[in-house]
């Protein structure tokens, strides 16, 4: 079965969704990401959906689930690159993705993850004092 590739980028995972996903592919991505967060000790997950011209309730739920599971595993998920027409449609559909952090592009998303990591490292340093 096809899989969406997951790249390691420092201590974050980067996923760029470039195909129109059928439901099993979305479910497989959710499972793959969850296991890779643990095996790579990842602290952040960046999901680039700029190539997606449609996000329906199934893919919306997948994004919500990934964000929730990664939070439990101490990793931050940021969804980046949502197209304006997709955002308008998602809200009208009734999915506002309240549990998902978003950023306009990959650079800003990566900055959000790094900011959080810098913050937690500073906390760790304080603990050692």
């Amino acid at each position, binding site marked *: 079965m096809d899989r969406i590739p997951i790249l390691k980028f420092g201590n974050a995972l980067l996923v760029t969704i470039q195909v*129109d*996903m*059928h*439901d*099993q592919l979305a479910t497989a991505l959710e499972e793959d990401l969850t296991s890779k967060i643990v095996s790579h000790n990842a602290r952040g997950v960046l999901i680039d959906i700029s190539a997606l*011209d*449609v*996000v*329906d*309730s*199934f893919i*919306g*739920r997948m994004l919500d689930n990934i964000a929730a599971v990664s939070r439990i595993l101490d990793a931050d998920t940021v969804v980046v690159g949502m*197209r*304006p*027409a*997709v955002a*308008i*449609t998602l809200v*009208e*559909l*009734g*999915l506002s993705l309240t549990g998902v952090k978003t950023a306009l592009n990959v650079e800003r998303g990566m900055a959000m993850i790094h900011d959080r990591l810098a913050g937690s490292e500073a906390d760790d340093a304080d603990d050692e004092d």
Partner: protein
Amino acid sequence: MPTTRTERVGIKVSDDVVRVRQITRAFALEVGLSLVDQTKIVTASSELARNTLDYGGGGEVTAEIVEQGGRRGVRLTFDDKGPGIADIEQALKDGFTSGRGMGLGLGGAKRLSNEFSIVSEPGLGTKITIARWK
């Protein structure tokens, strides 16, 4: 209402939901819908195609380009011979689900369309028609 183009797609596996999205997109482009309206009708088609598959046990969609009073639009009719919907009003409510979804499919598809109609007979199947006009 004259129909200028028609295509039928069977909905039997989850790849067919992707095909329904692609045909809806092609028809919406041909009609000249705005990008936001294209996205809305394609998203609605995805929700309804998944419902046909998950709850109707599979079926088919008829996609049409229709004309009425000088306006063009995309009309989609989803047909299944599944168990039917006993309480349509309840099924249209957000959050109502009998399956694995979020329960946004039917109500969401209605909000994303200009026209929405549903005919369902318990034990015989469900027919849902939506349209989006330019």
